[in-house]
């Protein structure tokens, strides 16, 4: 995809991001932070691509380190967010 198309997507994402996040209730700001945190763990995709194209030992080592770190970010982020959100319960009967 050419540069301008990518830039267009970026600018539109900024607006979507601001729009969606400004509606988040301040009660849930901590899960928002850890949830957003989990989402940027998707750098794992980038790390996998780099590791899959590595041809020498050094590059592969560093790329696998990136895969490892990104996985921790992604998996840990979603797990901990789920744990937090599970605790937000409504009054008995009124909730789930």
């Amino acid at each position, binding site marked *: *995809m050419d540069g301008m198309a990518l830039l267009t997507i*970026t600018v539109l*994402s900024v607006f*979507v*991001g*601001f729009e*969606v*996040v400004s*509606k*988040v*209730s*301040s*009660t849930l*700001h901590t*899960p928002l*932070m*850890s*949830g957003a945190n*989990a*989402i*940027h763990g*998707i*750098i*794992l*995709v*980038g*790390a*996998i*691509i*780099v*590791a*899959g*194209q*590595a041809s020498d030992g050094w*590059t*592969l080592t560093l*790329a*696998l*380190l*990136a*895969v*490892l*770190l990104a*996985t*921790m*970010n*992604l*998996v*840990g*982020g*979603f*797990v*901990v967010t*789920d*744990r*937090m*959100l*599970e605790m937000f*319960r*409504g009054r008995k009967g009124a909730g789930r």
Partner: protein
Amino acid sequence: MSLLSPTWTALLYLIAAICFVLALKGLSSPKSARRGNLIGAAGALVAVVTVFLSMKLDNIPWILAAIAVGSAVAAPIARRVQMTQMPQLVALFNGVGGGAAALVALLELPHTDDPWVRLAIVFTLLVGAVSFAGSLVTFAKLQELMTTRPVVFPGLPIVMSASVLVAVAASVAIIFTGAGWLAVVLLVFGLLTGVLLVLPVGGADVPIVISLLNAFTGLAVAASGFVLGNVLLIIAGTLVGASGTILTRAMASAMGRSVTGILFGAFKGGSTAGSTVASDRPVRSSSAEDVAVLLGYAQKVVIVPGYGLAVAQGQHTVAELQGELESRGIEVVFGIHPVAGRMPGHMNVLLAEANVPYESLKEMGEVNPEFKTADVVLVVGANDVVNPAAKTTPGSPIYGMPILEVDSARQVVFLKRSMRPGFAGIENELLFEPQTTLLFGDAKESLGKVLAAVKAL
């Protein structure tokens, strides 16, 4: 071999991106939030499977092993962490994400000679490194592996400026030459800049820094999307960048300060400076039994929890007190300031963990009109966020900070450790007002005594 055509790949990445937007959208209400997060996780899974199926990749067993190890390390930590330790865990996960982005950029440099791609690479490398090092220092501060006080030394602004200058110079040189050794220089100075950025920030301001570094990692990931030509990374990174930016600004305004003031205030001598001298003016203190009588014969009680409650781990006791009062037919709600706790919204998580239903957790704007109709306001371990000086004293350091208007209530009870002022280091006039009584002691112990006394009524 690639099983998926470029069209299918793009389509699956689009689905993953939509899942991420839905994950954030779900957080608009506690009801939909958990489902939203699971949708986000599903999106991430789709994306990871897609990358394996869409490209010809070598070293797959190694990659799978690294993923397995990463999951095996992170999932148990995430499951076991105490809710009070959430800020440092978020900082840690944020840091490793930034580190991964920086490594990806570093390794992609030899594969391109396009200056625009190199620009994206140096951005990812620099911001990722700053985020990695900054987050680890933040983690160390919150975990109390190092001092939580601002660390300032003479010449810090000069060292900081020099470090940034070297980083920028290296960036420019990389864009024109693509030299690998310069990328390592950039990485080192990025790390140094990250450390220097966070060192001078005091304990109370650390949450803002976490939020800001979260935005940084998001931006680094978005830039890495330009490096790899991957739309999903661009969208996901940008969403996180936007959310981090909004949160950082929301927190700074809830503290009545500017983001730059928090980051660079310490260069001029301590970001959370202030007196820690206890006042000796007379106050009305009372016993747990008196407080229990006040609460037990009220019709409506608002509890204002602050940082002191979290420190004392008193959230379960306060939840029990709420239950006991409600069983007597008393209406009890929690009025929660946006910066109560150690990160935005942290107090809500702590109370939710103690099984307080989310309907009882009221935001500042929602609860402020309710103080007038409340019989008793119980302030537990909070001080600056209920200080009327923020509205009435233009010269005060907290002037302009939005506060919980506890001063409009008929009766106010403070549970406090001592007469020492809060982070802002200023006295709270409300403590000396006639409608105020104080109960001194550790928040958890005091709550326990009050709870026992209410039960005995």
